[in-house]
């Protein structure tokens, strides 16, 4: 593993990526999940991660949310280190306080929504802005209502999650994450737990975000059609490595790697 002193304190230059994974390594005990991962995401880019089960897709997102610590390398967000902090001119592993600040530029939506069950949809969306960003309740309410309208959930704003369908809960969860005004949004299989007939209401919201907002997004999905429609780039993960990455047109039409071809034809056969 390289010494931390070989990593820059800050990314500079004309084209600083919004996200950079630099030689990132993740292990659980002896098991290497990801080794030497290098991935850049440009500002405003929508990148989708696909790949077989266990290939490390979720792990990539969780590392970026800092829900998992990394065992090597550095992740940068908007040019600044995320997993590390500068100290006496070198990078050292970030402490809790630095992490809290650094991860506030990242928002995440989970497969199982994870809305707070003791709060209404509106309160769920106000919680972060009031408690973390320090907005007044009035400002937070305005912001939350605006976002709930955007995801088509304003009529249900006073309902608790228990009273909402999966698709509705996921839309509230998207609004809750957006209320923190993140620079990067992460979506981990946000439609996998949904009934087929409500998947569209969630994908439409994400589609909307892509076309109308300049958010940087990293998404994991098993819905190839959706990935093809909205992504700027697709990364195919295999065994903890990026096996192949390209524009959706190229990757779906002319997959170069044998494994990508196998995966895509297996997915097609299952559809």
């Amino acid at each position, binding site marked *: 593993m390289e010494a931390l002193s070989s990593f820059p304190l800050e990314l500079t230059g004309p084209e600083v990526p919004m996200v950079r994974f630099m030689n990132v390594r993740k292990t659980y005990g002896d098991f290497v999940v990801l080794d030497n991962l290098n991935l850049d995401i440009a500002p405003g880019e929508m990148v989708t991660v696909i790949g077989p089960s266990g290939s490390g897709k979720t792990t990539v997102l969780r590392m970026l*949310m800092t*829900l998992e610590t990394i065992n090597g390398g550095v992740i940068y967000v908007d040019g600044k280190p995320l997993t590390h902090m500068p100290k006496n001119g070198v990078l050292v592993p970030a402490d809790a306080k630095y992490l809290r600040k650094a991860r506030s530029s990242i928002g995440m939506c989970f497969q199982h929504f994870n809305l707070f069950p*003791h709060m209404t949809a509106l309160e769920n969306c106000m919680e972060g802005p009031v408690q973390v960003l320090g907005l007044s309740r009035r400002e937070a309410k305005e912001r939350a209502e605006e976002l709930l309208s955007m995801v088509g959930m304003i009529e249900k704003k006073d309902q608790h999650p228990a009273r909402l369908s999966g698709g509705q809960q996921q839309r509230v969860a998207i609004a809750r994450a957006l209320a923190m005004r993140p620079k990067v949004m992460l979506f981990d299989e946000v439609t996998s737990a949904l009934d087929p007939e409500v998947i569209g209401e969630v994908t439409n919201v994400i589609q909307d975000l892509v076309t109308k907002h300049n958010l940087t997004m990293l998404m994991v999905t098993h819905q190839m059609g959706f990935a093809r429609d909205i992504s700027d780039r697709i990364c195919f993960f295999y065994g903890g490595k990026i096996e192949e990455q390209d524009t959706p047109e190229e990757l779906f039409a002319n997959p170069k790697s044998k494994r990508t071809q196998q995966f895509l034809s297996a997915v097609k056969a299952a559809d």
Partner: protein
Amino acid sequence: MTYISFLSDYGGRFVDGMLVTALQFLCSLALATVLALVFGLMLLSSNAAVKGAAVVYVEFFRGTSLLVQLFWLFFVLPLFGITLEPFFTGFLAVGLNIGAYGAQLVQGAIKSVPRGQWEAAYALSMSPAKRMRRIIIPQALVIMLPAWGNLVIELLKSTALVALIAVPDLMFEAKQLNSSTYLSTWTFGTALVIYYIFARFLVTPTMRSLEHVMARRMGRS
């Protein structure tokens, strides 16, 4: 002597005893609640010393008899120059004892809040303290409420032991009446019924309505 005349002669004593029992109950409940929350959180601490202190507390008060703890506080502490009022000693012992059981309930309930809730709060950049207070504890309360209800009944029953250090509670009055009247069936029968009514018609409905309020806060009623 009829039971009616027994009651009209000695009813006042039962009422006095009941009031003391009610006070013992409220004081020990308040103490047990605070201790359960504090030590329950300490049991979850990653700091070994903090956690160790909580483990010692819980092990000690759960592992030994409440009666011995009560006598220890009442008869042994004075030998070290610490003399406590019987009333204070009574609810201190009961509160400490039930608080140890409560701490384990709190710990278990907090641990059983789904991991996704911790992660969602983390993803919003909440500080650990805010996450605990705003997200985890409110849900843990809902989880632990039924078991807490049983513990409160247990606490009520435990307060009868304070009669043994001469706190004039319901049990104490019944015992006194018994030794002056020898009407064991009526004295202890009346005490039993009062304890039962207390538990069944005051404590249980209160816990039920609390559960109801909680369910509504979770949007589930």
